Each structure stands twice: as C-alpha cells, then as structure tokens.
C-alpha cells in the first residue's frame, strides 16, 4: 500500500496552478537577494488531488468508524460547522480590519465567551489560546501574575496529581514554576493528606483534571480546592474532560479558579489529524484582569435602532499576548455553531449520553477486563489490560488487535499510574450497536489473549500497514525526503 511521495511523483516542468501574467510594468529584481535553487515539487493538479486522496484512505477517522481514544473526545464533527466556518463573511476577513467592519465576528466571539462562561460558571473567558496545552500555559501564567500582582512572588510551587495529562507538568515548567507531584489515593481521587502537606506559603496553585484521567469524578475536589484556597493558592482546571459535565455541573462551583476548554473535544470541532484545536480559558472575576490580550467586550448594548457594538480590549493587568491576533477564530465559529445547534437541552443530553455510553461499555467488559478503581465512571474509563493467564500480552497487543475489528484503539499506556492502561472514551455520538460490537470485540480479544496469543502479537493484519518499526525510525532519523544532489537546480 506504500504511496509514492510528492517528490517521487514530481516531473520537471509541471505545475498545478497558473497565475495571470503581471498586469503592471516589471520592476527590477533585487539581484543580491535572489535564490538560485528552489527544490520543490512539480506536479499537475489532478496528480496532487489523486495523491492526497489516496493517502487519506490509509487513515482511520471518526467519519469512518468508532474512535474511542480516551481523553481526546473523538465525537462526530457536524458538517454544518464546516459550512458555517467557510462562509465568506467569516473566512474572508482580515484580523486587522477596523472593528466597525467586523462586528459580526466580534459579536460571535463575544457570544461564545458568554456561552462558555455560562456552561462553566466563569465570569470572564478568553478565546486566545490555540489548544489545550496553550490554555494551560495561559492559566498558569495567570496564576503567577495574580500572586506577583499581590507582591506574593515566593509562590512558585505548582501541584499536579500523578494522573494528570503530560501537558500539565510541561506547562507549569514552561511558566517557570516548580512542579510537585501529588499521588492519587486508593479510590483514584487526589490524596488529601499528601495535598495538605504541600499547602504552604510557597504554593502557587494546584492543577487538577475533573473528571480525572482515570475517568473518575474526583470526590475530593471541593475539599482540595478549599485547602489550596486556605493556604493562599489558586486552582487550575484542565478542561479536557468537560464532555462529562455540560449541564451537569459548573467547574467554577467546585472552587476551580481558572480552566481551559478544548473546543476540539467538548465542542465538536474537528481534530484535524492533530489540530488545529482551540483552548479558551475561563476565570473567576478576581482573575479577569489578567486574561491574555485581547478579549472581546460589548461596548454598547443594541436596541431597536442600532445593533450592539463590540471591540477588542486589553485587560488591565494582562499577562500579555499568547499568540498572534485573536485566537483560532475559524474553530470558534464551528464551536459556536455547535452550541447554538444543541442549546442547553442538547448540551445536557450530550454529556448524559457520553457518561451513559462509557458506563455501558465498562459494565459489558468489567468481568473480563480489570477495572483498577471499580466505581461508576464518567465519560471514559480505564482498564488494566493484562491477565495472569495471558503472559506476554500487553496493552499494545490488544490495541493492535482492535484495529482488525475496524475500530480505532483506545489510548494506551495512559494514565501512567495504571499498568498496561487502556483508556476508553466512546463519546455520546455512537449507537448502541457500535458500543455492543466494540464490547464484543474486547471480549473476543481477551479470549484470544489467553488461548491464541499469536493473533494478538501479529495484529494488525487487516489494516493497510502492519506494525511499524519505531526503533529504526528513531535511529535512522529520516525526517524528510532524501533528494538527489541536483534536485531543483
């Protein structure tokens, strides 16, 4: 199934796009700055389209089948979102246009800030961050700025539970903070006693994910927030798992002071093969002044004669810019379309169905797959994919075998605190038949693991590719097409 690369398909003299001849007099070219060679490809349009269509068919995707990749919320991406984001009134506007010429865009951003605020309980929202990890960095910088603003600059310690996404410790390190890990207790909640021991006057904040990455609702959340607040710290919420809470609970009510949303998870915008995402950040009133520059404000309310007027404003004590312009506007249009389509009833139903689906699969497989913390789960659950009577079988083998059934494997080897972890997140947009088929596949694979392990070791056999040699890739480090010496000359 190997497809040639664009460089291998290239033939001298071809081009896929023509431009009109210059309709202006030609200017003299700047001799000293001209490049001598341009080793790009040369292809006709139909060859380009065929190439990318062909390689696209080597992918699994939500539009093709079930994609229960834990912690990533691979729900269906509604087609209307793609249509609205491409309306010329949204896609053909320049970020530096005078605000009076982009009132529709600013109004949409303002409304999105309001919707996200209402769903989560926050007083102010910034749409600037480009992705979840970017939102985390923004949030930690806000916490840091808050303490510094109060002259409390000794607060440099960030606590992160051991079940956290890897981005949490990485984001806190990037902000210049010192990270201390807090283990989970026997029920999968944050260990309150260990937390208590770290709550001192150097504590800047706690980063917490709820539901946590075990898919469990952290029952210590309110107490944990209280402890951190009592010692002068703030609490950051990783909103990656917000799909369990729409209309169920507002994270601000737990005591979380600042939280990011993943529009590409909870709010149905496409994951794009790795992005673009969007990671808006919501904060309580006392942190609103620290939000990144800029936010959208309503300057005057509309009435019957004239519409409302919106502007981009710089929060008073802003942490500054975290990227160019105003965030991933195109992603925001998609998320706004989704929220508007679902409304409060649809959002609530999404979370209910997401939690119902996860618990349903868990119930169907839990007698065979060990669930390390056997409780009701939220929108996802984690199993320990190993059996004493199936030595040599690893989570990886199970994942690869799942591919043969036409499903995307769950997230594996995360969270790190569960051995041979498989993290399963079905999302709400799957039928009961799909959930049943997936559970049946898991049960069959468990049986094979014990009775016919070679099937697992050799999997996948029905995918376009067998297992790939990662060691070779890292050792040889071929990171681009190797071109002949004279290519492009």
């Amino acid at each position, binding site marked *: 199934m190997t497809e040639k690369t664009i460089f291998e398909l290239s033939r001298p003299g071809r081009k896929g796009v023509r431009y009109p001849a210059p309709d202006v007099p030609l200017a003299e070219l700047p001799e000293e700055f001209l490049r001598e060679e341009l080793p790009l*490809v040369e292809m006709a349009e139909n060859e380009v389209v065929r190439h990318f269509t062909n*390689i696209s068919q080597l992918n699994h995707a939500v539009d093709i089948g079930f994609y229960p990749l834990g912690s990533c919320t691979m729900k269906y991406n509604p087609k209307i979102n793609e249509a609205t984001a491409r309306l010329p009134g949204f896609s053909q506007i320049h970020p530096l246009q005078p605000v009076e010429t982009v009132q529709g865009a600013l109004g949409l951003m303002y409304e999105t800030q309001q919707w996200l605020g209402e769903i989560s309980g926050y007083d102010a929202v910034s749409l600037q961050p480009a992705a979840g990890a970017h939102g985390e960095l923004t949030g930690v910088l806000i916490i840091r700025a808050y303490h510094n603003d109060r002259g409390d600059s000794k607060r440099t310690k960030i606590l992160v539970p051991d079940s956290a996404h890897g*981005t949490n410790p990485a984001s806190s390190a990037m902000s210049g903070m010192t990270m201390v890990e807090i283990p989970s207790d026997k029920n999968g909640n944050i260990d309150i006693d260990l937390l208590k021991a770290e709550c001192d006057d150097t504590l800047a904040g706690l980063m917490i994910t709820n539901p946590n990455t075990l898919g469990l609702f952290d029952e210590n959340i309110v107490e944990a927030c209280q402890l951190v607040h009592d010692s002068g710290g703030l609490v950051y919420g990783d909103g990656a798992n917000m799909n369990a809470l729409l209309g169920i609970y507002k994270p601000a009510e737990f005591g979380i002071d600042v939280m990011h949303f993943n529009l590409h998870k909870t709010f149905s915008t496409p994951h794009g*093969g*790795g992005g673009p995402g969007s990671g808006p950040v919501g904060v309580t009133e006392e942190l609103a002044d620290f939000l990144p520059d800029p936010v959208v404000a309503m300057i005057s309310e509309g009435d019957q004669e004239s519409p409302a007027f919106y502007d981009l404003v710089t929060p008073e004590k802003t942490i500054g*810019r975290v990227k160019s312009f105003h965030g991933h506007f195109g*992603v925001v249009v998609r998320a706004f379309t989704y929220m508007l*389509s679902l409304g409060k009833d649809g959002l609530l139903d999404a979370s209910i169905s997401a939690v119902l689906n996860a618990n349903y699969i868990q119930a169907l497989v839990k007698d065979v797959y060990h669930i390390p913390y056997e409780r009701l789960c939220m929108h996802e659950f984690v199993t320990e994919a190993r059996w004493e009577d199936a030595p040599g079988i690893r989570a990886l083998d199970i994942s690869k075998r799942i591919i043969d059934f036409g499903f995307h494997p769950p997230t594996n080897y995360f969270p790190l605190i569960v051995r041979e972890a498989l993290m399963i997140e079905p999302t709400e947009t799957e039928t*009961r038949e799909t959930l049943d088929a997936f559970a049946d596949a898991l049960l069959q694979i468990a049986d094979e693991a014990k009775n016919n392990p070679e099937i697992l070791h050799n999997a996948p056999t029905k995918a376009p590719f067998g297992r790939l040699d990662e060691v070779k890739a890292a050792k040889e480090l071929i990171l681009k097409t190797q071109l002949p010496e004279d290519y492009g000359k």
Partner: protein
Amino acid sequence: MYTSHTKADKEEMLKVIGLEKIEDLFQCLPDEGKFPTLDLPEGITEMEAMDELQYISSFNETTQELVSFLGAGAYNHFVPAAVDAILQRGEFYSAYTPYQPEIAQGTLQAIFEYQSLVAALTGMDVANASHYDGATSVAEAVNMAYHTFRGRKTRIVVSPTVNPQYRATIHTYMDGMDLEIVGEDLDPNSNPDDLIELIDENTAIVVVQYPDFLGRLFDLSTLTAAAHEHKALVSVHINPISLGLLKPPSEFGADIVTGEGQPLGISLSYGGPYLGLFATKQKYVRKMAGRLAGETVDTRGQRGYVLTLNTREQHIRRENATSNICTNQGLIALASTVYLSLLGKNGLQDLAKLNYHKAHYAAEQISTVPGFSVNPVQPFFNEFVVQCPVPAEEVNQTLLEHDILGGYELSKDYPGMTHELLVAVTEMNPKSEIDFLVAVLEEEYHD
C-alpha cells in the same frame, strides 16, 4: 441530531449498568449545584442555525467586498479549490494525532511531506510538524535557545522590526525565566547590523525577521557571523511566499527559521487558525519542540512513517519536555502541503514575482502622489511603508469611505510613526485596484 439513543435504549443500557435512572450515573457528584439550569436557549435545527450564522456573518465586510492592502502578518492570497477539497475529506479532518501508525499513514505521510517541503523552502535540515502560528513559533525558537544553553545564557536580542505581536508573545512565553530581552527599543528604521553591539557572551539567541515587519530586506550574514562568534543562535522569521524568489535564511547562516504559514493556502479567517513554521539544523533536532514524522518500514516491508523522537515530548518527559505542545496545526499544515504541491517550484516562483512586481508598481505610483513617499533605498518584497502627509489613521479613515482597507497604521506599535502606513500588495490586487487607491489619494490629498 448527533446522539441516537431512544428512551428505551437508555433504560436498557441503565439496566445493564445496574442503575435505575439517569441521575444515578452522577451520584458521586455533590448534590449542591448539580444539574444547574443553564441560562441558554434551547437547541435549533440545522436550517435555523445556518440562517443565524449567515445573518451574523453579514455584519462583516470581507476582503472580497473591500479593496484590501492590509498585511502586517496575514496576507490575502488566492487559494486553489483543490486545497479545500482535500481539507474537507473526513479521513483527514476527523482523525487525530497519528498515535496508531498502522491506520494513520495518510496523516503521517502528509506530515513527512510537509516537513520535506518546509525544509526545502527554508533551506534548513529539518522542520517539525508545526506550531500554532508565527508568533508561537518565534517564541518557541527563543525557548529552544534558552534550553539549548541550559538556562546559562540569559540575554535575548530581538530586532525592533520583528512583528510586534510576536515580540509580545516572546515576552509572555519567557516571563517566568530569568531573562533579559534587549534590542526592541532601537530605532525601527535602523539596520539589523545595529543589533551586533548588543550581542555578548551571555546572548542565547538573536531574533530577526526577513522581510522585516516594515517589509524591508537586509543581508543578514554579518549579523549572523557576529552572533556565531559569541556562540549565540540566530533565528530568522520569514514570509514563505517571499522564498519563492528570495535567498533562504540558511544562506545567511540562520540556525532556526520560523515563519507564519498562513500565506500558503490558508484563509484569513479573522486571524486563525494559522500555521507556525519551524525549521532548524540537524544538530538541534533533539532540542526542537513539536511533533516529528520519520520514515521507517512495517512488518511487511512496506515503507511507512511514525511519530519519532517522542522522548522530547510532554507525554513522555512531562516537566522535562522541550515544550508543552501537544495538539498542533495538523490540518493547516496539510493545507500548506497541498498548496505547495499544487504551486510547486514554478508556481511559487511565478507567484512571488507577481507579488513583487505589483507591490513595486504600487509603491512607485503612490510615490507620485504629492505628499506621499516610499523610502526608495531598501529592497522590499510585497509590503512597504508609505509616508503620508497627514496621520496614517486619517488616511485609513478616508480610504475606508471608498471601501479601501488602506494598510496597517504603524503608530499602533511604534509611537513615533504617526504618519506611516504599512501597505501590502498581493496577486489579489489587480492593477485597477492599485490605480483606484492612487486615484483616491490624489483626489483626497491633491493640495
């Protein structure tokens, strides 16, 4: 809509779980505050949603309706239809990061081709799979330099003509590190060689832009040599379209090349999502942030690709990772890959020249209007500074009355440049639009 369970389905599923009612699923949440009544409207149909979004979008005036000479970091270019046709394929857009390479070769090969194209265009050894945008790629370059010297070099030299939004982003990103950022308060009209006296043994990186924010081109080889004498890295930020015509920064000795990839087939979309290009020398590949696809083979002997050097990344290294980046700009990187494949060597050269000639025609014509001038000394690509006889803000307001977006008012970032307008010209501006702009300026400012 997007969920399918009937009431009966839900009841049967609850029974399997061993619960009676939906509320039981949430029994471990605190009762107080559970199931809040959201102050939001009920859902609407697709028909209604489409109408509503159409209506909202009608309050925006587009670059199709207006005559636009706005650039300053985002450029109005033609996007061939084939780019969006590929982007709309669900196989690409409804997949995620290719964690399972056996069923993600489409995404992985596209990333590999993207890396190959970016490396070829910039003249560098390796490129990563993208950053969020131009601003964050520049900030990550500074972050990489800081970590390359393990925090021992604490001076960062930044040219005043690096895009002001990128400079602001560097400050935000590096705020928690004990760093000194110098150079930004130099005269924006100065030469990059004026940065040389700021470079010392403690300098980790020198950051410049080419063409710079004011559109100008400078030979950067003297600056680069001076930086290397002090063992500092040099990062050059580029406009990818310009490299269809211009020497790549590798020829000046750049260690890192960053770029805003938006001109490569990505719609303006009010500022995002765009694309952060990032390329460097082979010896820094382990210091580079971001995802990387590498070539390998599968068990059947087929050539394929995997994500590689993962030990640099947050999901393995956690707090010791080179960056916190996880989700990047996958689909936008794909757009630029399709775009560059379509244009290819010949198309990109044609396009770059077209931009160059049109911008030079515009600069020359604007200079004929009494009171308006363009500095004729420094070479430029497709963007240049117009000196106006009145404050640039007034000129822009006047032009907007004629449905022209005149350019970017430089006073927003450089307080001394009250009368300067940054004007960008691309293939989207036919001669008639340039002539119209000039005619309006003549009409409005003829005395």
